[in-house]
């Protein structure tokens, strides 16, 4: 639990409402737009409005496509989430309070103890209850300020806007009030509610993500989408009255909008998915499922739980089951069970690690204190606390088939000249103070520079999970946000607070602190960093590098090309042209049939990979190579007697070479007809070249982050 969650959700709920209404009444949406536009005009940087307006626009623009609408709204939500996140500098409530809340929730929900709910419930959901807002705001003026100020220092405006919105859509109030809500119990309730709505909305996002990042998740659940608006609307109603009745109602139809949402374990299509992921509680309550509606899968989750507990009762623990093409892998993490069912032929080791990362992502959002909830109440339902984060998980799972970091347990850097990277590092160092734990400059999942407090080092997996968390949330893109997070490898028990701001669409600055009040301070820090990077033209260098893309095997000659001194003239646009030229010699790749390579520097925990180029352009080819690397890497490291030193593998698709030493690991893919001798020569040359270029390709010397 992120304290901010509730607020997010509430905002989301607003959005939801908006959405809901949109399909039904265009007028309303227009009205919204106007409000937001107006707001925008006023606020300028106020991110919330802009999102909403975006959403509105999209809604209007893509009225034919329900999905689009949903997505957009979802994005908006996300953004809202972001907003709320930062809004919630979480004044009084530390993680503990959060836990408390959770507990209270627990009791309320599971025991069916409605009184609590009622008491809490009274205040928020009342539609149109502006007063409630006001009250809340009064309770925590600072919080409210924080929220709106961050966007635009004018509190009143924000309020106005909100009020406007409220009047238009009554329900949205809830959200707002929750944002302002300080009292733990109340907020918890609100959270539940918002979770409901979030669930709906979030479901769509992954698939339709406008960034195209998640493009591969192609299927879009049209049916669910079409009914989306209404559903969410109904749910809100449910929440209003449902709070009083029972938590059970809340759970119903929670995440209707997810991809393949209509499926469950009885549908053929659901069973045919190549890779399922499940998170469930040790009591068999579903927490997350990649496909299908968790609620409908309750029976299935119970089956999984039954299998695991059957074995556990025998004093044992189940690891995996293999049947033909399928592998079922089980992982127990305290009261949380993780299961994957896949027919992707990935090695066991890899699948276990993926489950581990999935668990890490869960911790990143909720910390290990979630386990206490289960100690208190075995039947605790975690889903409400995760409302709105489905996208984080689906994006993580998607990255298991494209991001090398998922199996290399290393991070990669944006190629950048040594001087530029040093300048970036200096900018981060500049803001050092004792409250700041880590400062990262990322370009998507690539590290530009990072600095950490003394004795604090950032584990590559934490970087991976954090960058996934940030990049999968649209809201972070457009606002400055302050979000509670947990770095599971650093300390899985406590919340830290991340200030997140995109300096430009490709560059994201993340400042992590232990101090929940540090928003404004970090905001200033960000301004300093941004200013510095601007002055020193580092931002421009970074953008250039992003546009240029990574290493290309066609351009790896005998080592005479220097990345920095002769930056390729290519920009994003050019790259596309270049593919044309490449196609002329399609299938050739680099010298000696080199198609792709990955070089991992062991002591730096970093890797560099070439771009996928000509013969590997189709998504299938990329995925095939990715999986082949994955199993090769697992094979090398899975040996019982220590890692293998070298492996050569040739099948119908590739020649793969893996080379593992104490300093570095090298994986390369060649044309299947490539000759051994020449490929070995090329590998040696590339390794040498990478070592020569170390300063530009890797982030070096930052390890003992001192300040």
């Amino acid at each position, binding site marked *: 639990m992120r304290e901010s969650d509730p607020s997010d959700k509430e905002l989301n709920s607003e959005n939801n409402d908006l959405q809901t209404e949109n399909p039904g009444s265009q007028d309303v949406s227009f009205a919204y737009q106007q409000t937001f536009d107006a707001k925008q005009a006023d606020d300028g940087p106020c991110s919330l409005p802009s999102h909403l307006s975006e959403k509105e626009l999209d809604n209007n623009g893509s009225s034919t496509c329900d999905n689009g609408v949903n997505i957009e709204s979802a994005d908006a939500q996300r953004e809202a989430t972001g907003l709320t996140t930062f809004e919630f500098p979480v004044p009084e409530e530390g993680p503990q309070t959060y836990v408390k809340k959770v507990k209270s929730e627990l009791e309320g929900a599971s025991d069916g103890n409605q009184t609590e709910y009622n008491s809490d419930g009274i205040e928020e959901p009342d539609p149109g209850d502006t007063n409630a807002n006001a009250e809340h705001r009064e309770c925590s003026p600072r919080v409210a300020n924080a929220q709106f100020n961050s966007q635009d220092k004018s509190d009143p405006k924000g309020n106005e806007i909100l009020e406007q919105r409220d009047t238009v859509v009554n329900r949205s109030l809830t959200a707002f009030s929750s944002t302002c809500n300080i009292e733990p119990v109340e907020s918890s309730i609100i959270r539940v509610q918002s979770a409901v709505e979030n669930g709906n909305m979030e479901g769509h996002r992954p698939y339709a993500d406008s960034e195209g990042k998640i493009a591969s998740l192609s299927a879009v659940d049209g049916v669910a989408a079409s009914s989306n608006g209404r559903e969410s609307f109904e749910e809100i109603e449910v929440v209003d009255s449902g709070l009083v009745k029972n938590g059970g109602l809340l759970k119903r139809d929670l995440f209707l909008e997810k991809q393949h949402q209509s499926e469950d374990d009885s549908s053929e299509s659901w069973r045919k998915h190549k890779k399922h992921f499940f998170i469930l509680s040790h009591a068999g309550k579903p927490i997350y499922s990649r496909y299908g509606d968790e609620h409908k899968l309750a029976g299935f989750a119970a089956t999984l739980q039954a299998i695991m507990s059957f*074995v556990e009762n025998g004093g*044992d623990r189940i690891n995996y089951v*293999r*049947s033909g*093409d399928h592998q079922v892998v089980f992982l127990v993490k305290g009261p949380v069970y993780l299961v994957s069912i896949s027919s992707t032929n990935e090695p066991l080791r890899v699948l276990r690690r993926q489950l581990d990362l999935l668990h890490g992502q869960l911790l990143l959002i909720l910390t290990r204190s979630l386990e206490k909830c289960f100690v208190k109440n075995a039947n605790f339902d975690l889903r409400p606390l995760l409302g709105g984060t489905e996208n984080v998980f689906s994006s993580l799972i998607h990255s298991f088939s494209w991001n090398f970091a998922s199996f290399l347990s290393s991070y990669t850097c944006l190629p950048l000249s040594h001087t530029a990277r040093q300048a970036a590092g200096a900018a981060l160092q500049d803001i050092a103070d004792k409250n700041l734990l880590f400062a990262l400059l990322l370009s998507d999942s690539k590290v530009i520079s990072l600095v950490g407090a003394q004795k604090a080092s950032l584990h590559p997996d934490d970087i991976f999970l954090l960058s996934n968390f940030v990049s999968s949330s649209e809201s972070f893109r457009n606002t400055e946000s302050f979000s509670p997070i947990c770095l599971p490898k650093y300390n899985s028990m406590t919340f830290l607070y991340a200030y997140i701001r995109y300096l430009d669409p490709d560059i994201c600055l993340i400042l992590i602190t232990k101090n929940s009040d540090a928003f404004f301070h970090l905001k200033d820090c960000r301004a300093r960093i941004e200013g510095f990077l601007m002055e020193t033209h580092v931002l421009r260098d970074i953008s250039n590098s992003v546009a240029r893309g990574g290493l290309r095997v066609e351009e790896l000659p005998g080592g005479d090309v220097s990345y920095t001194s002769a930056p390729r003239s290519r920009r994003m646009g050019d790259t596309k042209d270049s593919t044309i030229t490449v196609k002329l010699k399609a299938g050739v790749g680099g010298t000696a049939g080199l198609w792709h390579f990955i070089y991992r520097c062991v002591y730096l925990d970093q890797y560099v990979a070439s771009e996928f180029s000509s013969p590997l352009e189709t998504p299938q080819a990329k995925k095939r190579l990715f999986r082949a690397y994955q199993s090769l890497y697992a094979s090398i490291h899975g040996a*019982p007697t220590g890692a293998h030193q070298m492996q*050569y*593998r040739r*099948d119908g698709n590739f020649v793969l070479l893996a080379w593992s030493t104490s300093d570095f690991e090298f994986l390369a893919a060649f044309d299947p007809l490539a000759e051994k001798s020449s490929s070995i020569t090329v590998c040696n040359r590339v390794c040498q070249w990478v070592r020569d270029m170390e300063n530009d390709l890797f982030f070096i010397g930052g390890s003992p982050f001192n300040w």
Partner: protein
Amino acid sequence: MSELDTSVQLCIFDTSRGQSDGQELDKILFFYPSESPFSAQLSLIGLGEGIITFTKMFSPNAPCDIIDTEKRSHVFFQPEPDIWMILVIEKRKESGELGRTRALQAILMEAHGLFTLFYGSIRALLLNSPSGDVARSCLQAFLPDYISDVMTVKRLSMLSSHSGLQERGTIQMMALDRSTALEVQSVVDLLQSWFGSGRIHHTLLLFQDLLVSTTLPPEDAAHLYTYARMRLIPAAISTSSGGHSLKKVLSRANSSSVHLKASASDITAAGQRPSPADSSNHHSQFFTPRPLQHDKWWRDNDGFLVTDAWGVDAQGMSAITPTVWLQQSSQERMKLVAYQHKQLTVVMLISVMHLAPNADGSHVLRNQVLEKASNKLNALEDRLSKEWGGINANHVPGYRYLYVDYDSRVSKASPAGKIATLTKDSLLSLDKVRSEIDIAKGRCDGSGEAQPYELETCVRTRSNAWVVVRIRGNHELYLVLERASETLLLTAEATEKFSRRHCDGIFASD
């Protein structure tokens, strides 16, 4: 029963039985160790059935292969529809490594193959005796002997990593030069040319433990060869009693054979033929044969092998000739007669169908063989033993290898003594590589690709050994090279050389 050793468990059950509550025990056809409490037996079957049902959801055509837990591995094999075998092996902390799933499944496959060789399919036994008693007593008579064979010191021998260069269920051939091969052929022709009640339908010739020739199709040949290696070859027959007379056999038979209360009619019904009426005359007690019982084969004075594992005839005068079921060729029941001269073992199969109802064709055959063929067989043995290169005949210096041709179920490998010189590291790495390939291969089979599967892998282990795998279609070659200084290129060259010389160039790169 305080300390029941459960380090290895084997269970066979029929999911189509015992459907109603309270009848679950009826599913169980066999459980080892048999002293396990029913609760433990039911719990294992419950888990097995549960997982099978569960995995069928996702993989209807290939239900469960293995369940792996912290402490145990459960290996599944479905030999016949609805019939499952589960082998449970406790993991040992010290080794941490388990045999490959495929290799463990191969044990189950072999056990079932041998079982059907002697008793026919489990399903047929169940159909003939719906109560399941016959099937249970047959399994009970057979499997404990089998298990004791594959176990060494409470451990499946297969789990030793040495199995990486062995392939269970395949045949090892003796290399013959052309003229010897012709001579073998002429002997076989001679044996099979006789008509009448002693007509030989199939033969299987072994020199020591190597197959010289057979007329059986690959699968049956593999089963019978396995059995011959286990019990019939000179090294395997009972040595305790040179020149055993049948009298001794009889006395032993009465004392040591298992008397399982399966009536003769049940057994033969499962087989076929005689009416229940005529068998009830003599024996109220009938042997469920124990084909794998140790020390149950002797070489008679005339060179023929005899056993009382199948019991003795009504008069108590002679042992009953063993019968086998051929699965692949004719689904026929055959009498098994074996003749041995020094290192040469000849297994002859006579069709039961062509025998007069109560005649034992083996007497006729014995005479024929002794009269007309023994000289030739003796000469052949002579020639083979000259040609035989010794136990290290298959050794190729510098290489430790296994070459398998799955089409004909023939394998060729470095002699066990030489494999044992490899370091444990290399063998474990080989095992690891093989298990990865098993999985990849299984996947390829499933996808039904028209192209033959092709793969080449060279792995340099931590201890500088090279493990090389070449696969082309149904031909597989595994090599371990422990020459530390080799580079990948030299290794590839060495592999190429080996393939040209010893595998007919099947794996040549071009």
